[in-house]
């Protein structure tokens, strides 16, 4: 793979290896077992006893660790604090636009209903309905005037002005 490391190795590492003295495997690898005859398979043995290992107390590392954790949390909180309003703003923007469209739609609907109401209340239609119901204009004697008492029960019941 033509990574930067291999490119560097090509120029420097190979040259250093050529200049090194020959070494035997016993010197360098005491835990290596004897190899099988006529086999190029090698086994190594290494005994590791961790029972006596005690982690050395390192207050500096711990504090560094906590500092890193704290910094990360603070950074996260800061990021959230910075971006959360924008996020809320975005969500609110969607909601506002949706509400605006709904209001526009409702206004149009209200206008349509007002038009329909006006059509239903038109004198032509009311007269037609009255004719169908065989209503007649009240005779003069049948008309009761409220003599300026619009707050009376009778006035309210008949829609007095």
């Amino acid at each position: 793979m033509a990574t930067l490391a291999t490119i560097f190795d090509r120029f420097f590492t190979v040259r250093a290896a050529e200049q090194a003295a020959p070494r035997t495997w016993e010197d360098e690898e005491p835990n290596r077992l004897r190899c099988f005859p006529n086999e190029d398979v090698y086994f190594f043995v290494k005994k590791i006893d961790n029972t006596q290992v005690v982690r050395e107390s390192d207050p500096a590392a711990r504090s560094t660790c906590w500092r890193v954790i704290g910094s990360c949390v603070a950074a996260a909180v800061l990021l959230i604090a910075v971006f959360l309003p924008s996020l809320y703003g975005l969500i609110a923007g969607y909601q506002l636009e949706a509400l605006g469209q709904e209001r526009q739609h409702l206004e149009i609907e209200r206008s349509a209903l007002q038009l329909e109401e006006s059509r239903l209340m038109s004198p032509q239609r009311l007269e037609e309905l009255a004719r169908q119901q065989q209503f007649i204009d009240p005779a003069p004697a049948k008309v009761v005037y409220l003599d300026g008492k619009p707050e009376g029960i009778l006035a309210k019941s008949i829609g007095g002005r």
Partner: protein
Amino acid sequence: MEIQGTRRVNLLARLGFVWAVLIAARLLQLQIVQHAKYQALARDQQEKTVEIRAPRGAILDRMGQRLALSLPVVSVCVNPLRLPDPALEANILARILDLDPAELLSRFQTASAAGRGFLWVKRRIEPEQARRLADLNFEWVELRTESVRFYPNKQLAAHVLGGVDFEENGNAGVELALNDELEGHPGERRVTVDPRKQSFHSTTDSEAIPGETIKLTIDSRIQFAAERELEKAVHQHGAKTGSVVVLDPRTGDVLAIANYPTYDPNEPPTKEQGLTPRDNLALSTPYEPGSVFKVITLTAALETTRLRPETIVPCGSTVTIAGRVIHDHGHYGSLPMEDVLARSSNTGAINIGLRVGDANMFEYMKRFGFGRPTGLTLPGESSGLVRPLRRWSKVSIGSVAMGHEVGVTTLQLAQACSVIASGGLLIRPRLVAGAATEPPVRVIQPETAITMRRMMEGVIIKPYGTGFHYAHIPGYTAAGKTGTAQTVDPKTGKYKSEYNASFMGFSPVTNPAVVVVVSLHGTHGEAGFGGPVSAPVFREVAAVALRILNVPKDLPDDAPETTSPVKADENDLSIAVLSPVPQPLAGASLAELSTATRAELSINDVPDQRSFSQPPEQLAGPTVPNFRGKSVRDVIEQSAALGIPVEYVGSGVARNQIPPAGALLPIGERVRVQFGH
């Protein structure tokens, strides 16, 4: 190893630097050099400009009933040059919009072949269709919102409301007169959208200013009644056109303006229909009013002469003016002035006019508002026709006294009638509720107005009154005046046998709440006079208006029927040949609706007929005694003994009297005695 590491770092740093420089250069190019280009591209992609709707203001009647309002509707358009697959798109659109796919495809192809980049697919589609199309979110379809004016009551008050053109600009009536107030100014806002074309942010560039809502003084119920009765009368009497105006004389509020023929403002004008139905006859077309104008003549007489309602006025079949002998349809001998009005005697009116004189008559015509527009908030109002005094001929006073040589509109007549009804105040008619108008002007004395009310009531309650059988409103007192005049043939400029039948009146008499003026054009024969034709319209419209306005009745419910064995004199046709037809009225545009009268009788001299223009001594009665220094009781006793009518003013001792002692009191006149302490 140390050297190797340093070299690596150096190389890496150099590469990093080069990379950073390249990035910076690219950023410089994108962000600064090509800033405008990419900003525009981004805006095109992320932002769109949306119009903020500013609907045209609604028009309401005085009760808040909507007479006109605007509604947004969606129209569909496409760019035929950018349709990916015209056949498929035509199929989709046709299915949603209930169109013929083949025809729509043909339109696409035709438009595309012609290089047209815009094509309306369907205008004013249903809301459900608009929703379906919007949900599909096709890029090749554009939905445009348009505003459409609706008149929910159709032809009701059409001439008052007028109409709008395709751009929703007023082109007649209130829509034109108050276009600036009604017109809305739409705003604009920029909307930021996401890749799904959903908006999440918007900025208002300019605020929308919706049109004002205009509240009229019109009452749609009274308006409807006026239109209904007018149409009925036009059909019943074979008239061609007609108009009705209903006013509140106390405020000048116009409660109704009806015209026939009329039209539906929701429908655009057609060539077949022409513009005639859209003419607001009530205020744009003057005509010679005929006998209804006698009200003005008699009012002027009460104010400028000693004539009183009881004054006997010669009303023979002829009258001499400037050497010409004029004949009338009726021969009444002599009549009290109040009966001149009740019977609509032409010779009587001419005699009274001669007594009033040219200058006074002209002055009172102006005082009643004739010869100038009423100032109503409607376009195209005519000022009528009142000739300058210098252009009056010697016989003009006779013509004017009967309502000729003068052109008036129905609205002007209503305004003039309101002067009598309001007790002598000229109140400008008002169409917009709450609008400031000129303050009322007193043009006649209250006593004169009250006297005229009583005399006009006589037209309706006297068995021989021209409006006796037709204008009585059950439960209410009413006063009015009929009028009939001949119309002018536009081809010959001469009078023909068609009539203009009018009636102007008010009710109740003591505290008038409503003034109604009716004018029908093109009636024929005796059945086409103002009494039988227009007075019933007055009766029906006034009855409805009084009931709607909650006006208390001023007659008992069990009042006897106003029937009489005496035959009412319905002929109120005025004489028109005293002078030529006024040119503006004889012109082609106005002549069809202008009216005048014509003398059909041959000229026959009646030797014993006295002319009112003769010396006053021929009309004189007893000598006026000296009432000065006497008490009221003494004056009453003395005047009763001598048979002299006296008008008492004030209390105490008589200080002044008109006419002075020793003068001859004309027949029918009274002595005005002023008392004081």
